[in-house]
């Protein structure tokens, strides 16, 4: 399997802030736009976007310590829950709403995505692909809840409560009538194009209503 991945991998992706998904996300964002990052942590991506793309950067984060660090960086972060936190924003308030590696942690992912598409003209969702071959093999051979590099938690400690694959997301977008403008697949530091549902570790979708 590893050899197959080796043979099929695409171009190398240079990290932004040590993360290849950040590199993809920041590549999708037009300069001088208005950006909301959900589950923005300590605001490092937003700060990078503000400085390198002159975006008007806002964030929502539930963890108080991370909120403090984000505000100390000068990023406007609101301490709140993304499952409910979008309700107050008016329609189309942002050019982009980002949800990076957090969709699988939300209580009501579809509700969150619909709200993102309401307040954002475009939505960028990055999520770990539960369909990746390593997850499938881990499950098949161990007979236990898969524990891999992508999903490193014990089942009882995992923040992930909604697992999804590339195919699941594509199917949902089709059912909801969302337009998928871009889809980018990452395997480690390499872009992937072939068999994404099997090969992609992380998928990044750029969608709009």
């Amino acid at each position, binding site marked *: 399997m590893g050899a197959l991945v080796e043979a099929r991998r695409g171009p190398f992706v240079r990290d932004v802030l040590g993360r290849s998904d950040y590199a993809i996300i920041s590549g999708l964002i037009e300069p001088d736009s208005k950006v909301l990052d959900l589950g923005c942590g300590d605001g490092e991506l937003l700060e990078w976007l503000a400085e390198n793309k002159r975006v008007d950067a806002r964030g929502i984060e539930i963890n*108080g310590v991370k*909120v403090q660090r984000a505000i*100390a960086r000068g*990023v*406007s972060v609101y301490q709140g829950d993304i499952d409910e936190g979008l309700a107050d*924003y*008016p329609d189309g308030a942002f050019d982009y709403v980002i949800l990076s590696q957090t969709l699988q942690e939300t209580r009501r992912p579809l509700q969150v995505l619909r709200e993102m598409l309401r307040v954002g003209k475009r939505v960028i969702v990055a999520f770990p692909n539960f369909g990746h071959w390593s997850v499938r093999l881990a499950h098949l051979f161990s007979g236990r809840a898969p524990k891999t590099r992508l999903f490193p938690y014990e089942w009882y400690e995992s923040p992930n409560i909604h697992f999804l694959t590339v195919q699941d997301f594509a199917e949902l977008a089709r059912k909801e009538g969302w337009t998928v403008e871009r889809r980018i697949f990452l395997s480690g530091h390499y872009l992937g194009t072939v068999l994404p549902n099997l090969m992609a570790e992380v998928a990044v979708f750029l969608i709009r209503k």
Partner: protein
Amino acid sequence: MIVTTRQTRFDSLSLDCGETLAPVDVAFETYGTLNESKSNAILILHALSGDAHAAGISHETGKPGWWDNMIGPGKGFDTEKYFVICSNVLGGCRGTTGPSSINPSTGCPYAMSFPVITIPDMVRLQKMVVDHLGIERLLAVSGGSMGGMQALEWAVSYPDRVAAAIPIATTARHSAQQIAFNEVGRQAIMADPDWNEGNYYATKPPARGLAVARMVGHITYMSDESMREKFGRRLREKEAYGFDFSIDFEVESYLRYRGSQFVERFDANSYLYITKAMDYFDLTNGGGSLGHVFEKTTARFLVISFTSDWLYPSYQSLEIVNALRSRNKDVAYCELPSNYGHDAFLVEVGEQTELVRGFLARTYKERT
């Protein structure tokens, strides 16, 4: 940093109640240096019992300012970068015209003939000070509690004059509970025979009433937890109950001490007028949505609340934050963990310093 309180006089001030005060004196202090473009000025707004002496060591009293841990060289409000102003509020008793000032038309203290004032009145007077200093636009306005109300009022009343607002542990309108505690304080003062309908300046002040008002205040500024930690049920200089009504508990001793100290430095009539101004405060003027009120604001906001503050609970800060978000305004919000209750805004320096420093630096970079 040795500082001196300055004074300035304005011809007159029109008030919300319809009356005009003439003339009006204002006591204020400044720290740091105003830059050439006058773009680094920050106005600090004090709470109920505060004054113009916010930072540094007073030339007259030798005492540090009430927010000295937040304002100064290298501190949250860094006086090496910013020019910081703080004035005593209208109705106060520390150099700004208030009920204890002499009414020029009678030659006697105003006492209860002083007109009832509002938070917007206080802010209008502060704007005259800012104009007097030749400052076109403030980099920031900030304060806790009643100071936070003034910060909000500034951002709403003078949207072009404020680049950022930092309201801390505050509310957009006083709640029934907040009004209730203030009313207990006022009634304690007015029930003291020495109050004498406010005419006590030639005799003796209503010290007992004002002390009781302050005691009630102090209880609301602390939390159950901070009181448990500070006093518990410890007895004051005795091994067993006294079986009388002298002081038994440490907490009684503390409250009495704080009450009697307050009388030394605060005017009872000022307490009545300022608490009334807080109770009248409602950014919506009793109607319309808070979001609508913030429609024209251009300031960035940093809103801070504290977990154990039950006098100005976080839901009131969230109300402000959500109203701002509903108009897509730039707002950062954080609820800081603290056991200190409402006093936290004066005590929790570490976290506030980080938040304020980062927020101000970004504002200065982007908005000047």
